[in-house]
C-alpha cells in the first residue's frame, strides 16, 4: 500500500463535495479515496447521479459556483490541486491532466477546423510554432489511426464521423503526454462497432504511453474489458474497490452483486426459445420505404431534381401473435424510422398488413388500429407531458378508445399493473424517478390492451438495475396478454436474452432476420457477425 501511494499519479484522499441548492445542501461526494498509479486504468462505475462526473470535474478543478469542498485533498504527483492558483490550473489542464468527453460532437468547436483545435493545445502547452504544431498534429492523428491525417487536419467537425471526431479528441488529450487522463464515458455516444475500435485504440495508446487513466462509465461490461482495477460508486460513496477479477467474480458488497446481476447476459434467456408460429402473422410489413424531406416549392416549379433522404429502403418483416421481435442496428440504421412509420408518425410507401387488413397510409390508421398498435418511446422525460398529472396522462387512452367509466378506479388498476402505488395518479412526471416514469409510459401503452407494442429503445436511458426490472415487467405483461413486441434496441446482449427472433438493420436496409438462439451461428451475414464481435462480452467471462 505504501509503495502504491508513492507511485500514485492521481491520489484522491477523503474527498467530499457538496452542492448548495435551493432545497438545501446536496452531498455529491462523500469521503472518496482512490489512487491511480502510472500505467494503470481505474474504472469508475456507477449509475446516473452517483457523482462520477462530479469527481471528474473536481479533479479538473472546474466546479460550478455552488460547489463546496468540505474535506480531503486531490493530489497530482504529490501536489495538492486545491492549493494552486487559477493560472497554474490553466497551465496544468491539457498539459499534465486532460479529459475526453462523452459526446465528440459537442466537445469539439463546430466553427474551428479539427487541425486548429488540435494544434492549439500544442502551441499553448509545448510552445511550438503554428507550423510545427500543425505537422506534429498530423503525426498525432496518424498515431490515433486516422487514415488521411493531413486531410483530416483541414476538415471541420461536421465533415468527420463520430468515431473520427472521438479519435481527434483522444489525440488532443494525449497531445502533451499528460500524467493523467480522465475518460468520461468516451464511447457512450458512439455506435457499437465504432466504440469497439475506439476502445481498442484507447487500450493501445494507454499501454504505449503509460498514462494514468480514470475511466468513468456506467457500463460494467466495458469497464471489465479495459480497466485493471474498478471502483464502484453509489450516491457519492465508494462502495467497493478492487481488481477487475475480484469485483466481478467475488463482489463483497450487495450493491455490486445486484449491479452485476442486472447486466444482460445472452446466455441467460428470459423467454421460451421457440417462435410461436401462426398461419397468419399479426403484422406483415411489406416493402415499406420511408423518405425524409419534401420537395422544395421552387424545385417543383423549375422541375429540378430533388434528392430525398432515405430512412428505410423496402423493409419487409412480420411479427406473429405474442412474439418478441428484436430490431438491432447502429444509430441511423432506420430502426426508429420503421417504428414511426408503423405508428403513423412518418409517411411511408409500401404496405403494412395488420390482422389481415392492408394499411397503405395514414388514412387507413383508424381507431381500431391505433388501439391495437401502441408505441413506447426512449426517454420517459420526453414522452410524458410535464404539465399533466399522471392521472390525466393515463386517462387519455381510456377516453379515446371508449370505456371511460370509473376512470379513477381504472387508472389505479393500471398503476398497480406496473407496480406503482395508486397514489401516483395525483403526481406530476417530474416528481417520479426515471424508472417510474417509464412504468407510467408502459401503463399508458397497455391501457388499450394492444396486440402489438413497439418499444423504441425504452431501456437505453435507464440504469442497468432499473433496466432489468423494466424488462422483467414487460415480459410479465407479455405473458399475461399474449402481446407481440417490436423491441428496438442497440443492446445486443439484452435483445439476445428476450427476443424470439432478431432483425438486423444497417443504413436503412434490413440485413437479415434470425432466431435469437442462432444469431451467433457462423452462417450469419457479415455485418451481423461484425456487430456481435464488437459487443463487449458479459461481465463474468472477462475475469
Amino acid at each position, binding site marked *: 500500500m505504501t509503495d502504491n501511494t508513492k507511485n500514485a499519479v492521481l491520489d484522491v484522499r477523503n474527498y467530499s463535495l457538496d452542492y448548495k441548492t*435551493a432545497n438545501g445542501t446536496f452531498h455529491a461526494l462523500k469521503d472518496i479515496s482512490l489512487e491511480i498509479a502510472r500505467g494503470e486504468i481505474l474504472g469508475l462505475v456507477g449509475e446516473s447521479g452517483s457523482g462520477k462526473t462530479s469527481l471528474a470535474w473536481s479533479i479538473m478543478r472546474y466546479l460550478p459556483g455552488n460547489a463546496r469542498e468540505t474535506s480531503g485533498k486531490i493530489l497530482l504527483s504529490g501536489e495538492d490541486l486545491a492549493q494552486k492558483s487559477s493560472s497554474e490550473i490553466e497551465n496544468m489542464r491539457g498539459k499534465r491532466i486532460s479529459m475526453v468527453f462523452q459526446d465528440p460532437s459537442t466537445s469539439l468547436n463546430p466553427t474551428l477546423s479539427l487541425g486548429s483545435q488540435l494544434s492549439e493545445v500544442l502551441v499553448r502547452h509545448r510552445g511550438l510554432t503554428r507550423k510545427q504544431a500543425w505537422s506534429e498534429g498530423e503525426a498525432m492523428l496518424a498515431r490515433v489511426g486516422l487514415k488521411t491525417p493531413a486531410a483530416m487536419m483541414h476538415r471541420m467537425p461536421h465533415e468527420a464521423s463520430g468515431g473520427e471526431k472521438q479519435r481527434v479528441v483522444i489525440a488532443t488529450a494525449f497531445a502533451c503526454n499528460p500524467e493523467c487522463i480522465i475518460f468520461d464515458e468516451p464511447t457512450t455516444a458512439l455506435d457499437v462497432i465504432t466504440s469497439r475500435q475506439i476502445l481498442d485504440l484507447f487500450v493501445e495508446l494507454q499501454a504505449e504511453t503509460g498514462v494514468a487513466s480514470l475511466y468513468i462509465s456506467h457500463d460494467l461490461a466495458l469497464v471489465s474489458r479495459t480497466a485493471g482495477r474498478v471502483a464502484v460508486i453509489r450516491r457519492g460513496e465508494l462502495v467497493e474497490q478492487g481488481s477487475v477479477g475480484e469485483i466481478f467474480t467475488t463482489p463483497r458488497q450487495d450493491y455490486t452483486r445486484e449491479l452485476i446481476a442486472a447486466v444482460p447476459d445472452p446466455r441467460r434467456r428470459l423467454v421460451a426459445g421457440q417462435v410461436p408460429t401462426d398461419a397468419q402473422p399479426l403484422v406483415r410489413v411489406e416493402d415499406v420505404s420511408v423518405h425524409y424531406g419534401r420537395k422544395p416549392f421552387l424545385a417543383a416549379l423549375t422541375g429540378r431534381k430533388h434528392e430525398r433522404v432515405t430512412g428505410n429502403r423496402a423493409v419487409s418483416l412480420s411479427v406473429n401473435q405474442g412474439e418478441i421481435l428484436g430490431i438491432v442496428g447502429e444509430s441511423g440504421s432506420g430502426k426508429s424510422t420503421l417504428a*414511426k412509420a408503423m405508428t403513423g408518425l412518418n409517411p411511408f410507401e409500401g404496405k403494412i398488413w395488420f390482422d389481415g387488413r392492408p394499411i397503405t397510409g395514414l388514412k387507413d390508421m383508424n381507431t381500431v388500429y391505433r388501439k391495437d398498435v401502441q408505441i413506447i*418511446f*426512449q426517454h420517459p422525460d420526453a*414522452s410524458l407531458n410535464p404539465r399533466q398529472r399522471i392521472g390525466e396522462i393515463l386517462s*387519455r*387512452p381510456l377516453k379515446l378508445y371508449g370505456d371511460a367509466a370509473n376512470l379513477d378506479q381504472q387508472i389505479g388498476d393500471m398503476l398497480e399493473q406496473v407496480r406503482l402505488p395508486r397514489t401516483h395518479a395525483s403526481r406530476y412526471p417530474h416528481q417520479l424517478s426515471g424508472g417510474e416514469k417509464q412504468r407510467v409510459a408502459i401503463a399508458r401503452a397497455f391501457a388499450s390492451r394492444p396486440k402489438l407494442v413497439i418499444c423504441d429503445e425504452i431501456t437505453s436511458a435507464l440504469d442497468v438495475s432499473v433496466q432489468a426490472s423494466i424488462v422483467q415487467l414487460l415480459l410479465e405483461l407479455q405473458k399475461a396478454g399474449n402481446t407481440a413486441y417490436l423491441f428496438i434496441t442497440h443492446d445486443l446482449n439484452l435483445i439476445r436474452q428476450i427476443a424470439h427472433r432478431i432483425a438486423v438493420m444497417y443504413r436503412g436496409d434490413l440485413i437479415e432476420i434470425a432466431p435469437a438462439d442462432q444469431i451467433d451461428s457462423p452462417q450469419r451475414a457479415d455485418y451481423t457477425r461484425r456487430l456481435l464481435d464488437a459487443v463487449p462480452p458479459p461481465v463474468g467471462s472477462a475475469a
Partner: protein
Amino acid sequence: MIEFLKRLLRTPQGAIGVTLVALVLVAVVLGPTLAPHDPEALSPLARYKGPSTAFWLGTDQYGRDIFSRLLIGARATVTMAVFATIVGTLIGAIVGTASAFMGGRADEFIMRTIDAVMSIPSLLFALLIVNLLGSSTINALVAVAIAFAPGMARITRSVALAVRKQDYVNAAIARGEGSSYIVMREMLPNVIAPIVVEMTIRVSFAVMLFATLSFLGLGAQPPAAEWGLMVSEARRYMHLSAGILIWPSAAIAIVAVGFNLLGDGLRDALNPRT
C-alpha cells in the same frame, strides 16, 4: 406557489417590479374609494395650482384634482392595457402553436402572412383599425390586441417548434388524438412560461400605445380620466403649470417600468436553472 414567489422576490428586478405593479393594482381596485375629490368637479378658482395639502398633486386647467383623476383613470388605462395584451397574447399563442404543430405548407402560409402584418408598425396598424372601426375605447382595445397578436404568434411558434419534437406530442399523434386536443392540452401548457414573460413586458407597451391613441384623440374621449388623454389635454397648458403634464406621464412611466421589471423577474423565476 410560495416558493415561486420567494424566487421572484429574491431578484432586485422582481422585487421592484412586484412592488410597482402591486401599487398600480391598489389604484385600480381601490382608486374610486381612495380618491379625495370628485375627478370631474370643476373649481374655477383653483386652476393650475401646485401641490398642496388639499390637492396633493395640484390641479389642472379646470381646477380638477390631478391625484383623484389619476386614481380613477388607473382603472381605464391599466385594465384596458392588460386586457388588450391578454386577448392579443391568446390569439397569438394559439395561432403560433397551431402553426408549429401543422408544419409544412400551412406553417409557411401562416408565418409569411404574419410577417406581412408585422411589417406594418404596430402604432400605424392600431391607427388603421381605429380609423376603420371608429374611435372608441373598445375599438382601441381591439386595435391593440390585433396589433400584438402577430408578434406573440412568432415568439410562441419558436418555442412550440421545440415542443413539437417532444415525444409526448408524438405519443399523442400515435394514439390518434385530435389536432385541437394536441394544440390546446399537450403543447400550449408547455409554451406558457416564455409567453407569460413576454406578456408582462408587452403590457407596458400596451399602456403606452393606449396613451398614444388617446393622445391622438382616437381612444378614450374627454372628460374621461384616461392617462394618455390627460397628457394630451395638458399639452396646451403646460406653459402655465408643468404638473398637469408631468404627473400623468409619470404614472404611465411607473406602470411601464413596473411591468417591465416584473417581466424580467418572472423570466428568472420561471427558469430555475439561472
